[in-house]
Structure formats: C-alpha cells, structure tokens
C-alpha cells in the first residue's frame, strides 16, 4: 500500500501517491456518508482520543463524527480545562494517556511542532489536527478532495491563497500539498502577513489581489484573526476588506468557473463578502465541511490498518510499538 505512514503529522511527510491513496478512499467514504446507513466497522474495537489544547468546535466535531461512523470508541478531552492548568507538561499528559492504550490520538496544539513531540512519546497513531502555525494536514487534504471533485483533477491548476499566510497552518499545508501535486500557486495578502522568504517555496507572491486572481481556477480565502486587526499588522478592518476582501469585482478577475473556498469560520465583510460565500455557483464552503468528515475517516482508517499490521508483525496483540 502506498500509504505507509504511522502518523499523520503533516503534508511535508507524505508522498504524492500516498495523498492519492488517501483521497481515493475518502471518495468512497463520501458515498458512504451520503447513504442512509452511514456506519462501517473499520475502527471497531479501537479507542480514539481527541486532545484539543486549543478551542475548536468544527474540527473536533468532524473528527468525532468520523471516528464514530467507523465504529471507534471516541473520547473528547478539553485540554485547556484539564491538567495543563495544573502545571502538567505535554509529555506527562501524553504518557498518562498512553498508559490507557489509545489507538488513535487526534491532537491540536497552539505551538508549532508540539504534535511531533507528542508523537515521539506514544505507542499509537497520532493525527495532527493543527499545530501552531505549522501544519493542518487534514484541512489541506479535504481542500484537495474538494478541488479534485469540483475540477476533475488535482494538478496543473492555478490556485490563489489569500489573506493571513504568515499565521496560517492551513496555508502551509495547502502550499505543500498543492505544490507536491504540481499546481501553480499564488499567495496574495498584505506584506506584513506574508512569511519570510516564502517565495523560495516555488510560489508567486502578489500584494494586489486583482492581479493575483487573474486566471485562477481556485480561490482559497483564509480567516483573519481578530487580534491581527488592531493596527499591528494591518491598519484597519475596513482597509483590509477594501484591498484584500473577496467581493464580486475582485472575483471577476479569476476564471469564470473559479471556485471559492474558506476553511471557516468566516468573518463575513472582512475577508469575504457574504453574498459570495453564499453563492452556490461559486462557493464550495459547505462541500469542504462535508469532505472534512470523509477525509478524516480515510486518514484514520489507513492509519489504523498500518497500526494493526505493525502490531501483527510484532506478534503482540497488546499493541506495543516502538
């Protein structure tokens, strides 16, 4: 099988054929999810723990539904309210959980690299649900699935990613994934929200949104965090909307059949005009949410297969891996 990873820590660590394998399986889960009988037994008997060190409703719900549809025992831990407040370190928390023999650990953490660190210390499969400004691999995979289904392919497309690139793990994972699949990438946003030397990743950089959107097949908008709007990175919300908010006029520079994406939650009237977000001919934002569940099912299914294979080859039903 071409998906042989033990963890899903980032797109950086995936080869193109592994990405294709995962998306193909996700396509089948989309069909399952649309059928009246939504259940499978792929994860039956396995325990999935969702550890969110940073608040998230949507991603956590998506992982929870994905796990439950596959028959896993799912447990949510609200980590902000838990032991970290009592001074326990991330590693101690990981070791404590590890002692309970989970099989899948879904982790979101406010610091880049925290999920990699945790993965070194546990015996189960770890899925990165977003770490700091580093990666958010399932978001990039669900975006890829959405694009592939809408455009019929995932290569030789012109994709524009717009907004706060610097603080966005969604942007990083998408840059890596779409780059690996050989697409033309453009990053558009104010220079204060552009990461240093990002041009060396083989992307084109634009300050001007109309120029950047010229001929784009896919327009991917990013959320602008409220705390960045205070004059530190951009002068004001209204100037941002004027220059980088997606409205009908700016979108008219993209291809007529260009699709509009957003990872949510949206700030209507800041980075995107409400009517565009709701335009069913252009916006695929609701499909993204649907694809999210399917992609997460596929990712957990594949990791669980690898986990079981590894345990069998060790001839040890207790699930000890090194």
């Amino acid at each position, binding site marked *: 099988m071409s998906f042989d990873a033990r963890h899903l820590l980032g797109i*950086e660590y995936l080869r193109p054929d592994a990405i294709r394998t995962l998306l193909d399986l996700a396509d089948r889960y989309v069909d399952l999810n649309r059928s009246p009988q939504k259940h499978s037994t792929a994860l039956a008997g396995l325990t999935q723990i969702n550890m969110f060190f940073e608040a998230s409703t949507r991603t956590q719900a998506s992982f929870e539904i994905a796990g439950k549809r596959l028959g896993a025992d799912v447990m949510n831990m609200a980590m902000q309210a838990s032991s970290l407040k009592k001074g326990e*370190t*991330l*590693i101690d928390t990981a070791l404590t959980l590890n002692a309970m023999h989970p099989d899948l650990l879904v982790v979101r*953490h406010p*610091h*880049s*690299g*925290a999920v*990699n*660190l945790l993965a070194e210390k546990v015996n189960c499969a770890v899925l990165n649900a977003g*770490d*700091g*400004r*580093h*990666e958010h691999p399932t978001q990039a995979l669900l975006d890829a699935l959405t694009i592939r289904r809408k455009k019929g392919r995932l290569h030789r497309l012109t994709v524009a990613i717009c907004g706060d690139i610097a603080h966005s*793990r969604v942007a*990083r994972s998408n840059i890596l994934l779409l780059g690996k699949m050989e697409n033309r990438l453009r990053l558009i946003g104010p220079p204060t929200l552009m*990461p*240093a*030397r*990002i041009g*060396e*990743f083989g992307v084109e950089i634009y300050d001007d949104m109309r120029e950047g959107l010229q001929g784009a097949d896919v327009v991917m908008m990013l959320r602008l965090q409220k705390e960045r709007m205070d004059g530190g990175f951009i002068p004001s919300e209204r100037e941002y909307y004027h220059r980088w908010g997606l409205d009908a006029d700016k979108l008219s520079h993209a291809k007529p059949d260009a699709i509009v994406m957003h990872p949510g939650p949206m700030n209507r009237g800041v980075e995107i005009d409400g009517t565009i977000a709701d335009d069913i001919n252009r916006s695929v934002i609701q499909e993204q949410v649907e694809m999210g569940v399917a992609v997460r099912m596929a990712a957990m299914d594949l990791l669980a297969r690898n986990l079981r294979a590894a345990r069998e080859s060790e001839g040890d039903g207790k699930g000890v891996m090194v």
Partner: protein
Amino acid sequence: MSEQPLTLTNAILINPEAGTESPGWLRIENGMIAGSGAGAPPKGRAIDCGGKYLAPGIVDIGVKVCEPGERHKESYRTAGLAAAAGGVTTMITRPDTLPAIDSPEVLEFVTRRAREAAPVNIRHMAALTKGREGREMVEIGFLADAGAVAFTDCDRVVADTKVFSRCLTYARALGALVIAHPQEPILSRGAAATSGKFASLRGLPAVSPMAERLGLERDLAIVEMTGARYHADNLSTAAALPALRRAREAGLGVTAGVNIHHLTLNELDIGDYRTFFKLKPPLRSEEDRLAMIGAVREGLIDVISSMHTPQDEESKRLPFEEAASGAVGLETLLPAALRLWHGGHISLPALFCALALNPARLMGLPSGRLSKGAPADLVLFDPHKPFVLDRFRLRSKSKNTPFDGARMQGRVLATFVGGRQIFGKEGN
C-alpha cells in the same frame, strides 16, 4: 602544585602568540612555564606526549554555572570536571543566576564555592544592572574590588539607552569591561528561530538577523559616546559584521566574540523541532555561519567561547517555542572548534588565539600563552582521534548538547592547571 620540575617532551607546541606550530618540549617549574625548545629536553621528571599537540589551556568566557539557584542543572564541581575534561583551564562565569550575581555578597558566595569545588581557574563576571533588570546599575566599584572581571546582563539587553550609557560612563572611570549580547529587544521578542525559509516552513516565530545589527549599532554609538571598554559577545550574523569593522577602523577599542555553536551549526540542524538546538540568539543561516568563520579567521572576531548553558530535561522536553534556550559546551568546545581546522578554515595557532590568548588578554589574565613565565595552564590533545558523542557520558549535570550522536574528531588527553595535571591518564 608540583614541587619537582616537569618536562613535557615529544609534543607539537601550539604557540598562539608566535603563531607557530612546531615539535618540541616544554618545561614546568613551580606551576609556571619555565621554557620550551626544540632540541634535546632537559633532564629530570618528564612526560612523553607521544607526538600529540600541546596548547595553552582554553579560557572560556561566558560559562554559566547554575549556582546560586539552580544547582540541579550545574554546580561548580560538575562544571569544573567538565571544564577539565574539555581542556578548559579557566572559566569566566556568567552572572545570569538566580539571584543574579549583582552584589559583592553574592559574588563572595560564588567565589568561595568555586574555590572549594572546582579544579580549574575560575573568575566571575557580575551583572551590569541590579537583577539584570536594566534599571539601576550595580555597585561596579565594589564588585570590581571583589574580583569581578567584567560586567554583563548577558542575554538581556539594557533597553533604556540612558541607563546603558550611564553604566558605560561609570564603568569607563573604573576601567571596567562591559560585555553585551547585542540584539534589538523588541524586534526579537518571542522569536524562537531566524526568519527565513526554514522558520517559515516550520511555522516558528522568527526574528530577522537585522535585529542583531540594530543592537550592535546602538551599542557602538554609546561606546563612541562614553569611551567605555566594550566586548560584543555572542555575535552570529553577517549583517552585524560591517558595523563591527567600521568601529574597529574608526579606532574604537571594541572586541567581539562568537559562540562555538554559531560556527559549527546552522538553522537546518533544528530539523523536526529538536530543542537541544534552540539557542539564543537562534541558529542562523549557512551564509551567516560561513561569514562568522571568516570573521574569526581575519581577526575581526577575537574570541570563541562555549556559551555553556545547562538546562535540565524538563526545560527542554517542551514544544520548541516553550523550551528553554542554550546548550552545554565545556566538553565539546575543543572537538567542535577542531571541525574548523579539519575543514581547512583556520590554523591551530589562530584557533588558540581565539580560544585562549585573546580571551585571557581581554580579562587581563597572564594565561593563554606558552611563553616563559606564563602559568602552566595547558591542554594536550589528539586532534585526529575520532569518537561519537554520547551525551550521557558528559560530566556536566545537564546533558543538553546539540552534538549528541555526532561524529567528532579531537580528544583531550590531559589538562594541566598551574602545572598540576587535573585530567587524563598519568604519563600520557
């Protein structure tokens, strides 16, 4: 102290003062170097060096020993053992302890601890401002009288230029040396890496290398204004070097230092968030590393130090942004520095200028030389001996070395302080 004179024979003598590297013998009497030569050695007690290299012992400025406050990270005893094993014969310790060494009383405590517990020479630096808070200057006069060799707030920048310029003015009147780690503190706030492709890929908060130049330019202007003795330590970027060169050419008597990690590692070594590579300032680009080596070779940078910073496992086993900065270096300074020699960047006499002679001169010490009358502080080493570093075999209490598992070349065979062998097999 050896009563009997001792001759170290059959050695290759590295003389940084003369810039020479030649076979010969060296004679020790009453803890001092009594002479050296190339012909037949004098009669009497002798140690055959087996054709290995004999150099002045390393004078390492900026060593952190975690007393008072964090003895579980490093004590004077363990730091002393590490120094002896690393060929470091004089440690100049940093004042960034808990509490800071900012009063004659604390200085007296560490002086006593150092004397009781360590086999190598130890001198102490004191903080420049009380509590290293950048607000009020310490009792520079009392501290100098009590033996402080320099004044520094270490990695904390005295951001208030009025406070900093008054400290320098006051220090000048006493002839006291002020050491700073130049950095623009606001621009670099919260940074865990150097801005660039690597930090962008890893999603780490990063600082432009220009922050170091901004800090250095500010300091140099204040040095010009006050005339104080100033050493810019822990420089790491190519961007800062033109400012240093201009100051030198203008006749400003400033000196500068670099730590060994910025000469031998770059930002890519951080890899998948390896926190033993989290330093302050952060590791830089390969271009910066090569520029720093060039600056050492041409003498623009005077001193190489280990910037020995012990951290326990707990403070390193954290997400990269949250982990503590710094690395231990006493035992790896020489083998790491020899990478520059093996790589053809620098000669051994020039290397020992930066490791021994220049730091000794800066601190007003008579060591760092092989000349007659200098203290017999010596290191005998085999620069070719290969080994794989195992961090758990370090003598430091803390094992946070970026060289764990690294292939290195160059081992210390024996270390002498005041003519007495404090490390290595007898008769080596």
